[in-house]
């Protein structure tokens, strides 16, 4: 059988990731082929020596920094985020109460004017007044 083909299976063979049919192919082949048997032996030795590499553990200092981290920063960040979103929400609720039709228009009279007059070929912008609010609607095309 083709040695190149078997060689590609050898790595998965030592990882026990071959199906039965391929295992038989490999085992029958290496019975007869010294060259592939040698390669298999070398792959196995490589695996053994990688497994014997001494991998250190993370240093005490690093572990401490990680375990201490949430108390110092994450919680603070979370509190900030919660606080900020509460303020935004509160603002969104309160500000419209003080806003009348006049100060919306006066605040930005120019922009209001331009928006009112400008028409694009794709869409027309209509403004309607209803109570304290200015309603905007679009027609005449899609964006």
């Amino acid at each position, binding site marked *: 059988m083709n040695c190149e083909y078997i060689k590609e299976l050898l790595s998965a063979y030592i990882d026990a990731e071959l199906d039965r049919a391929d295992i038989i192919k490999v085992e029958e082949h290496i019975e007869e082929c010294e060259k592939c048997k040698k390669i298999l032996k070398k792959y196995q030795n490589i695996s053994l020596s990688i497994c014997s590499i001494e991998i250190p553990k993370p240093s005490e200092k690093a572990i401490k920094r990680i*375990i201490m981290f949430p108390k110092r920063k994450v919680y603070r960040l979370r509190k900030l985020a919660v606080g900020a979103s509460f303020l935004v929400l509160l603002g969104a609720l309160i500000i419209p109460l003080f806003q009348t039709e006049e100060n919306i228009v006066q605040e930005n009279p120019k922009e209001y004017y331009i928006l009112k007059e400008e028409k694009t070929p794709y869409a027309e912008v209509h403004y309607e007044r209803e109570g304290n609010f200015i309603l905007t609607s679009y027609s005449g095309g899609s964006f």
Partner: protein
Amino acid sequence: MNIEKIFLDYSDYVFKYIYGMVQNRAEADDLLQDTFIKVMKASNKDIRNWKSYLLTIARNTVYDHWRKRKNKYNLDLFKLKAKERDIELKLDIERGIKKLSPKLKEVIILREINKMEYQEIADVLGIEKGTVKSRLSRARDELKDFLEGSK
């Protein structure tokens, strides 16, 4: 789930991968810290497989780190080479792994150090199981050639 428990359960496992990739303890310490800080900042709902989730984040952290350091390394290349010569020769296999491209290095680390199955590796790397198989075969072949050449 409690992040501190996650950390205690998996920090060694994640560290193995990071250390295998960078082969430098101080660097691996920093990257482990960056990895877990990312995890703490993320919303970790619906995580079914912590092992592969953590490894995915660790992997992104390692690659980001390499991307950021790339220019710096180029500048320091000469210095590093001189430094490397002074350090006593490490074991051949470690030097061999160092020489592998990141793609081949990570499959070897995940398989041999983290003891993952092909399907798990495929999930973490976002590639096909068949690709894991062929990359591992290539990685072992390159290691074999390196070891034969260094004798």
